């Protein structure tokens, strides 16, 4: 049916445009630079490690577990929309035209990760004497076939069970995948054959079950919405994403920072912004991640100069993201009508960002005392975090005024 084929084509075009639109921010953003440094450092450490690998490491198992784990999570990308539960309902018989294309895209979009892990694992496998060049070719072909099976099976399982128990399904596929890959690397072809046969039977079983059930629009639409929301949340770390509906958690364990209000003495914007920062997952987890990363950096980076740059870069990223998150929000909020001066909210955002960056600087200083002892270096590291944060807040504040 042309209609559903065209529908997929048009949605896919828009989806790719949307991905490109946000990925350009991701690949040019300040966090990407931090990520690039981290990948470079990890690559260097791995290559150093390969020069003198420790004895007795179960390299085949490690490679099999990592690759099979990456393949087991095969969430289908359907690009379905809420209105489809109404408009596509009469077209259920023809729906495979649409879902077939969706699963092909899912397969190609998921394949790079296990292949990348395989490529990364190759020097390790070689260092431990596992396999040979022809065997690696077989392994690559098996990975491609297993990825295809994983994508198809997860879709069939979700259709049959409306997504209930999907982690059990993933665990079973993961176990089968590990045995297939390990069997090839270890030369245990019997284990590979048995595990592969079990995997194929498992796929056929769920395909048959799925064929007996109607298409669960609600489950797949919800899944798609959550998937896109995850992408928007990620992109929001780099730029403001208008579609984003921030998720909220109570975080009552941080009640100390959200004391009960005395309505006569508490400032309304301070009360609101504190809760917004602490309870909105996006702002809170981003700040916490960057703070832990900064503390981890001073603990493990052996060169103080690099550690100073690292701490400064993260203080900048964390201050700017906190400011942006607190300044963003809906087109209309009730506090826009509150009877207080226009600049009150801006001043409180500035103040709160300053406070959380002080906490980050304190965490960096405390962490730096562990490797550097009672010396000036930890205090200087804290000072770098403070100065960079303060400069970022003030310069961004001035930019906004202009």
């Amino acid at each position, binding site marked *: 049916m042309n209609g559903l084929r065209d529908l997929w084509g048009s949605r896919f075009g828009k989806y790719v445009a949307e991905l490109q639109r946000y990925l350009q921010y991701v690949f040019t953003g300040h966090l990407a630079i931090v990520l690039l440094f981290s990948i470079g450092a990890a690559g260097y450490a791995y290559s150093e490690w390969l020069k003198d690998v420790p004895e007795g490491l179960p390299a085949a198992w490690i490679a099999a577990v990592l690759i099979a784990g990456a393949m087991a999570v095969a969430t289908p990308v359907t690009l379905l929309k809420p209105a489809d539960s109404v408009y596509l309902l009469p077209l259920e018989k023809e729906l495979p035209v649409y879902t077939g294309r969706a699963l092909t895209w899912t397969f190609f979009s998921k394949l790079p990760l296990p292949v990348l892990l395989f490529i990364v694992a190759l020097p390790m496998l070689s260092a431990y004497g596992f396999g040979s060049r022809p065997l690696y070719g077989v392994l690559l072909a098996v990975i491609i076939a297993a990825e295809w099976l994983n994508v198809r099976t997860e879709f069939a399982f979700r259709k049959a069970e409306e997504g209930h128990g999907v982690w059990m399904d993933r665990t079973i596929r993961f176990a089968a995948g590990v045995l297939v890959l390990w069997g090839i690397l270890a030369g245990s072809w019997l284990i590979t054959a048995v595990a592969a046969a079990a995997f194929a039977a498992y796929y056929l079983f769920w395909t048959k079950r799925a064929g007996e059930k109607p298409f669960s629009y609600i489950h797949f639409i919800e899944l798609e919405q959550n998937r896109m929301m995850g992408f928007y949340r990620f992109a929001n770390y780099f730029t403001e994403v208008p579609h984003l509906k*921030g998720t*909220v958690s*109570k975080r009552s364990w941080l009640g100390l920072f959200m004391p009960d*209000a*005395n*309505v*006569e003495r*508490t*400032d*309304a914007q301070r*009360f*609101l912004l504190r*809760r*917004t920062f602490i*309870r*909105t997952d996006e702002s809170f987890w981003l700040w916490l991640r960057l703070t832990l990363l900064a503390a981890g950096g001073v603990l493990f980076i052996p060169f103080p100069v690099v550690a100073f740059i690292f701490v400064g870069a993260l203080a900048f990223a964390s201050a700017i993201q906190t400011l942006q998150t607190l300044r963003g929000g*809906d087109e*209309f*909020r*009730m*506090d*826009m*009508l*509150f*009877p*207080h*001066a*226009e600049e009150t909210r801006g001043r409180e955002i500035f103040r709160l960002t300053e406070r959380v960056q002080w906490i980050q600087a304190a965490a960096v200083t405390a962490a730096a005392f562990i490797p550097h002892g009672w010396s000036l270096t930890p205090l200087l590291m804290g000072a770098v975090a403070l100065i960079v944060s303060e400069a970022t807040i003030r310069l961004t504040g001035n930019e906004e005024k202009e």
Partner: protein
Amino acid sequence: MAILDLQDVTGGYTRKPVLRDVSFDIREGELIGLIGLNGAGKSTTIKHVIGLMNPQGGTIRINGVTFSEDPELYRKSFSYIPETPVLYEELTLREHLELTAMAYGIPQDIFEARSLELLKEFRMEKRLKWYPSHFSKGMRQKVMIMCAFLAEPSLYIIDEPFVGLDPLGIRSLLDQLTERTADGAAVLMSTHVLATAEKHCDRIILLHEGQVRAAGTMSDLRKAFGRPDASLDDLYIAMTEEAAHERLT
């Protein structure tokens, strides 16, 4: 003195105005219904009154003050209930009430007493620690209504208040409005529920294509349209047909 006074207000989103020379006033103790078709300019009028849009011409005064003269005093004089409830997903019901009390400078003891009364009236007293994600649309609307009434300003601006409310909620809202107007407050209410508007509003403003087509009590409107036994529904339909006829001729 009128609590709300609009004089020749012209305004809109672009250079082409949605509102053209809109004038009306609301006095103490009055409940005024703002009636019109979709796109007639009701929400635009309200956005101008609450200060979210600046008029391209004319003046809007609340208690004799324009927004530019004293924004804080202007904002303190009214509370607003939007058509679609706008809540903070990160605040509980109690925190919404507290935030309103802080913003409007309500003393703690008065806040406790007023909020208790409102929570009972709208049957929400057991949901103080709930977050908006757990509320139905009607409950979200009740939170907005309670916050608006908590401030006890001299003017209430309410956009489509009955959407999503259950019959008990509608009755509670109307009771509250009657009580507030009896105490001297003024209410500007936009609605499509014409039977309720006819029954409860002191005066009606019929807005059509951004202009006030007719305004007054039900008896004034009946006289103006020459239909002594007409309901507000009949008058409303007559107004739109008349306007369509004017356009054709």
